[in-house]
């Protein structure tokens, strides 16, 4: 990555969505928006993965973001998707800040399973909660943006553009964060925590901050998915949803902040095609794809762009 074109790429993606959007069919816009939403979650997972942490429960914050977006509409009658995404990020970050005191103490399999357990607790709570629709969930208000209520045929386009804009803004902030001393610290934490402490900084504190950022990103993603799909249910916190995010993160690789979105898009395509070809065995196709990827591109898709000569 000698020449860094990340920010121009982000701008080009937004421009592409804005310009190509009106030409795309509704289902394609839907796929793009969902890919952006899941890409945000994967971006958060990537931050953690850089420090050697795998969260098997990131769906916790995805679901919190979605339910926050839904609840803002259901209880306060706010349908503005920008407000919903902001609220989703804020609530997810708040929960992560509290849980972070516990999770930042753990590494490896303990961190992974503890995060999984927490997401399953949320799943259990939602299933039992009648006010939030129990296992059926509830519908999210039709999206509006800055007071504009788009017509039926334009709503997907507006949601895609607004979601893309917010996601790219968030990604640009993450890009900036990764260039601060704190952001750069992640690989060092992965390699040698003791030395990081002996350089004079707190590993636990650094992980806690990363964890909160990852949760906020997932919260935005969840809110965007909620307003895109128009319906939320407790499955958004289920462990298979978390598994999907890990799949996307591994598919993408940790090479760039753009990678998770590419990974999410490819995942969406594989998923859709596989489901179309064989509705009953689509998981098998996904599994095969992941297997091939791990064998041939262990550093993820992004390594195709950054083939560096071996050190």
């Amino acid at each position, binding site marked *: 990555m000698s020449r860094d074109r990340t920010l121009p790429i982000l701008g080009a993606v937004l421009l592409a969505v804005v310009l190509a959007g009106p030409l795309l069919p509704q289902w394609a816009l839907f796929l793009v928006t969902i890919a952006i939403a899941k890409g945000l979650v994967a971006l958060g997972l990537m931050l953690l993965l850089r420090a050697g942490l795998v969260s098997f429960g990131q769906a916790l914050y995805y679901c919190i973001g979605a339910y926050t977006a839904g609840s803002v509409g259901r209880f306060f009658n706010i349908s503005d998707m920008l407000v919903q995404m902001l609220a989703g990020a804020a609530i997810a970050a708040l929960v992560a800040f509290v849980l972070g005191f516990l999770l930042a103490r753990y590494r490896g399999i303990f961190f992974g399973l503890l995060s999984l357990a927490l997401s399953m607790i949320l799943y259990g709570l939602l299933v039992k909660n009648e006010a939030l629709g129990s296992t059926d969930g509830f519908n999210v208000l039709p999206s509006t943006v800055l007071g504009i209520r788009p017509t039926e045929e334009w709503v997907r386009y507006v949601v895609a553009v607004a979601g893309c804009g917010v996601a790219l803004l968030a990604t640009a902030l993450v890009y900036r964060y990764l260039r*601060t001393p704190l952001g750069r610290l992640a690989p060092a934490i992965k390699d040698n925590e003791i*030395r990081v*402490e*002996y*350089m004079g900084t707190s590993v636990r504190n650094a992980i806690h901050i990363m964890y909160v950022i990852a949760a906020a990103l997932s919260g935005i993603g969840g809110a965007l998915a909620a307003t895109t799909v128009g319906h939320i249910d407790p499955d958004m916190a289920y462990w298979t949803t978390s598994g999907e995010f890990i799949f996307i993160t591994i598919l993408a690789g940790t090479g760039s902040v753009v990678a998770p979105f590419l990974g999410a898009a490819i995942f969406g395509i594989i998923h859709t095609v596989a489901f179309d070809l064989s509705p009953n065995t689509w998981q098998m196709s996904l599994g095969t794809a992941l297997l091939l990827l791990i064998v041939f591109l262990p550093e993820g898709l992004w390594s195709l762009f950054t083939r560096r000569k071996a*050190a």
Partner: protein
Amino acid sequence: MAVVLDARDLNKHFGAITAAVNINAAIEQDSVVGLIGTNGAGKTTFINMITGYIKPDTGSIVYRGRDITALSPREITRIGICRSFQIPQLYASLTVFEHMMMGLGVVLRNAGMGGFFSRGRPNVPGHDAPAEEAAERILERFGLSDYRDRNAQVLPGGVRKLLDIALTMASKPTILLLDEPTSGVSAEEKFGMMDMVMAAVKAEGATVLFVEHDMEVVSRFAQRVLAFYDGRIIADAAPEIALTDPEVKRYVVGGELHRMDEQQGRAHA
């Protein structure tokens, strides 16, 4: 000269094992102190207590008039007491240059600079230069410039040792603790390496404590020797006096031979 670090009546036991008994040592500013003793004599325990990794059972450590006994390793690093490791503690996936940037980045962050909203390239406190330049300068002092873009994983042993020490210099130590800086380095290279390290450290103006088994290295570089045996300091004097002390000769200097006997005995058992 002013006392910069003062260890007072340090005691430490690990179960039945005695690691430190009534350790008293006042370290003067800008001095170079050699710590000698057989394996298990208490040298590394002493270093670990100073850097906060191990807490003494009783006693206190005072740094410039401040009791630092209860501080954590990272707090102690921040106030200027840094250490290197017998086995280099590096970041396997990072290059030599990235190591330095990592260390300097932490210094920036601890000073409240280089944060999310800061712009430009601020000077790193203590280095009077932006991080990139400070990193290049330290690497040059340690003769590591040629390895700048090499991954830590593929570096030769001696270079790893040097990088481990160079990384501590990013934190601008006032006291530098070197745990066996020449272990694993060939006999011919030892003196050259110590010359380079001492020159680099003195250029940064730090007080040095180093653990060393090679008595020639000790007598050449140390101004003062602390000889450890069984958790006690049995001699505290200039090298020419300490190294000829009968007790030191018996327990420490002659210990090399003694230890080899022991290891052979174990191998036969």
